């Protein structure tokens, strides 16, 4: 399914404010409310878009998080990635090929929390051979409008 100009315009409106009513979006774009409703249903059922809540990391005092990059026994990589995905603090996990087998990102409030995650939730996993933790000291760009909808 490809998005047309109207789909993109609706998405732009809802990126500015996810609480806009269908009526308001319809008025802004000069189409009927029914059209908006129908387009949104289509986008959501195709798992292309959803309304999410994004919280401000600074206001919450979030450390931000850390990249965790793992070397694993190749045959265990998928299972380990699934385990990491099950952790609430894990916001991203992907299988990769090359220098690492898995790259993940964990959110954490404090460094102590990072240590706990690495030491109690990752190190003990069978098949993990190496753990490389990188803590960002700055974020220059971050498209938090992009997600993976399972």
């Amino acid at each position, binding site marked *: 399914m490809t998005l047309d100009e109207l789909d993109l315009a609706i998405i732009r409106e809802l*990126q500015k404010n996810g609480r806009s009513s269908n009526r308001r979006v319809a008025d802004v774009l000069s189409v009927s409310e029914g059209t908006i409703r129908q387009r949104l249903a289509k986008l959501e059922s195709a798992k292309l878009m959803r309304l999410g*809540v994004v919280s401000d990391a600074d206001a919450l005092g979030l450390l931000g998080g850390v990249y965790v990059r793992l070397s694993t026994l190749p045959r265990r990589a998928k299972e380990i990635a699934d385990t990491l995905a099950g952790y609430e603090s894990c916001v991203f996990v992907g*299988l*990769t090929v090359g220098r690492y087998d898995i790259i993940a990102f964990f959110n954490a409030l404090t460094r102590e929390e990072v240590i706990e995650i690495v030491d109690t939730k990752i190190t003990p996993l069978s098949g993990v051979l190496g753990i490389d933790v990188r803590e960002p000291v700055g*974020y220059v760009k*971050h498209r938090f*409008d992009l997600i993976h909808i399972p």
Partner: protein
Amino acid sequence: MEQAGVMRVMAQLDFKALDFNILAIVDIRVTDRSISEVAAELAAIEGIGSISVFLGDPPIIAQVHARDLEELRDLILESISAVEGVSGVETNVIVKIGKWQSLYGRLSHNTESK
């Protein structure tokens, strides 16, 4: 909390909505130029979804989105590599995304949404 900019309800897109079929986590090394200058210049490149800066090696890790391998090639070999100060690029292509949420952002000084 919404008025104070602490949280925001917004439309979030799946990668496939933008036809981003390829995701890579790219390490970027820098020589002879300040890391923040290089990072700021990289931020203007469409296709780079996020840029984090580190103390250590690599100094920059970027998330790169591309529609296909040709586009990834151009992003790496032409756009990113052309930035002055970039002295090395190591691309880790993600072959399967297990999870990707965007629960947090810096709402006050980043409204990046294409």
